[in-house]
């Protein structure tokens, strides 16, 4: 009767009374969370489209994507608050699609907090433990409140807290149950930078210590990159690409991912195979790329390069055969951001490219109006299929 995840952390204190406790799939410890061909439609609107995901047990999985792309809907289907129109949700190999939310060993930090207004902060946090008849409730709640730095606020009502404090109560309320899967829907969005960093570290610590599977929705790419083992980038109900953060950053496979995760310069061109490399004609210049970072090898392509991989040289500087070089740029905007300087460079065909240069102090920065050439190493470029919107995902993220 007792649940594996709860027994794991609360000791053998479960009484096993009542038929309403969450029952994990077959008592398996290693419960991977799996979504198989999950589709969710609201009327004719497809919010989640044929989603296939596997989140390994104990991993930190981040779900990134623009507003309205179906992240919350996906979490709600895992929590059991929304029934998939098609497909299955599996936990530890067994199908939980038909299981009521209160029987799932899954807890959620809601995007809207959904704190109980008639209960004190203490009782809000204790809610889950009371339902599962956990013991030692006041000590555990005390510890949890300390963790989220709200130990003095136990007797307050949610209405008497600030937005960030409410968010921390929501976090504590879910975290205290130590479920098999914790769903976090932008759990740190209302916190200031310092508190957010502290909470990130705590979350990561708890996640590794107790080996809870975290599914974390965030708009903060940096948060996703630093915390997650795996990132899935969602767009309009589908996962565009999934993988390790560095892998996603270095090898984006779609323009959406290239633009959404960090920023990219995308140049239209014609590719052809040239020995071990690929040559791309871009506005009359011949640029080189490597097949390992290319999803297409010939025909119309978009050549992408991250702004920090590009360096600026004087137009008159000697040519280095090792590097790709695009000539004829004019600096149109310079913004100094401390560790680096960000340039916008207008190319002869009108496109504006971004360049981030470290402020190493080795040479003075360029002023607006300077004529410059852009250089980067061939292996820093990636090639994408040209049949996509070059601006997809650009400027969607505020962070």
């Amino acid at each position, binding site marked *: 009767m007792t649940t594996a995840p709860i027994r794991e952390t609360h000791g053998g204190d479960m009484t096993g009374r009542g038929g309403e406790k969450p029952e994990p799939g077959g008592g398996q410890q290693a419960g991977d969370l799996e979504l198989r061909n999950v589709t969710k439609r609201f009327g004719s609107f497809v919010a989640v489209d044929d989603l296939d995901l596997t989140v390994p047990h104990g991993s930190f999985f981040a779900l990134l994507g623009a507003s309205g792309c179906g992240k919350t809907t996906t979490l709600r289907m895992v929590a059991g*608050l929304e029934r998939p129109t098609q497909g299955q949700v599996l936990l530890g190999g067994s199908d939980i699609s038909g299981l*009521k*939310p209160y029987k799932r060993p*899954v*807890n959620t930090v809601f995007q*809207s907090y*959904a704190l109980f*207004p008639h209960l004190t902060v203490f009782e809000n946090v204790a809610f889950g433990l009371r*339902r599962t008849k956990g013991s030692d409730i006041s000590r555990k709640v005390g510890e949890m409140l300390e963790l989220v730095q709200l130990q003095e606020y136990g007797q307050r009502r949610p209405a008497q807290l600030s937005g960030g404090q409410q968010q921390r109560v929501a976090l504590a309320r879910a975290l205290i*149950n130590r479920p098999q899967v914790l769903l976090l829907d932008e759990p740190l969005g209302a916190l200031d930078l310092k508190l957010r960093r502290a909470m990130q570290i705590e979350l990561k610590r708890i996640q590794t210590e107790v080996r809870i599977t975290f599914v974390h929705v965030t708009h903060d790419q940096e948060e996703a990159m630093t915390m997650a083992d795996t990132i899935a980038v969602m767009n309009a109900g589908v996962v565009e690409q999934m993988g390790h953060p560095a892998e996603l950053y270095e090898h984006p496979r779609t323009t959406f991912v290239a633009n959404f995760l960090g920023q990219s310069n995308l140049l239209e061109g014609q590719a052809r195979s040239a020995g071990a490399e690929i040559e791309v004609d871009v506005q009359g210049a011949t640029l080189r790329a490597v097949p390992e970072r290319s999803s297409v090898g010939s025909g119309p392509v978009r050549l992408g390069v991250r702004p920090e991989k590009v360096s600026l040289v004087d137009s008159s500087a000697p040519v280095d055969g090792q590097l790709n070089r695009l000539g004829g740029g004019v600096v149109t905007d310079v913004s100094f951001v401390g560790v680096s300087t960000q340039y916008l460079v207008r190319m002869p065909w009108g496109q504006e490219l971004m360049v981030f240069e470290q402020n190493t102090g080795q040479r003075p920065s360029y002023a607006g109006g300077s004529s410059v050439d852009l250089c980067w190493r061939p292996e820093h470029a990636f090639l994408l299929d040209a049949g996509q919107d070059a601006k997809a995902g650009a400027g969607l993220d505020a962070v």
Partner: protein
Amino acid sequence: MTALGHLPTPANTVAPERDEGHRRGPAGYLLMIPGTVWLALFFVLPTVTLAASSLYDPSGSLLNGYQMTWHWQNYTEALREYAPIFLRSFLYAFAATVVCLLLGFPLAYAIAFKAGRWKNLMLVAVIAPFFTSFLVRTLSWKFLLSDNGFIVQTLSSLPAVPDDLRLLATPFAVITGLAYNFLPFMVLPLYASLEKMDPRLLEAAGDLYASPVNGFLRVTLPLAMPGVVAGTLLTFIPAAGDFINDELLGNPRTRMIGNTIQQLFLQAGDVATASALSVTMMVVIVLMVLVYVRKAGTEDLV
């Protein structure tokens, strides 16, 4: 009561902070005049008159006039004679309130959360009976429950029901009538407090291992408590004093306190006893309400 707690008091609507203690007095008192006059005319005056007439000489009559003799024995005599009727009134009112709560809560819940686009129509349906008179509606219950009415006919044709079943002129009919007539007073406050509740709280409760029953008891019910308190008071108080339902649907052995007072005042001309009963009724109800509101603990609900 919470409903009253939200009303702005004159003190915090007038007098902005900067001219503190300056023009606050006159303006505030001027604004209070209409309300004060109204209360004095229609509340204080009748109450004082009623209290006074409860101490009249009991031998007075319309013909001979009434004399103020501070005859407090009116109270003891009235209570000695009419205590069972008091008890019966509160019992009937309590039963009707329970029926209203049991019928009204699911109805209010359905209107608030499940009605979708039918919400307004359902609310109108709840209020619609007010478009006809209280008397007419109660009279139609008389027809419904009469011995030749289809309800009694259908029921007595069933094997388990005695053939001489009577519904009209029974306590059942009186309580049914009370429950019917005061149901909207239960449904509307319940609806108002359920409507304010965020349904996502129930999702959160479910997510935190609360079964639907548990979620209802731990989340919905506490949040609906102001509505429950307001609704039960709005049902119980008028039901306890009602005389129409008993007049039309009851019999002499189901007399309620309202009927007794009415009969004493208008037919027997026993103003002193009638007044003593009225004052007693008022005091008992005020005391019950105070205890109830304390017990229900709604003062600190949001």
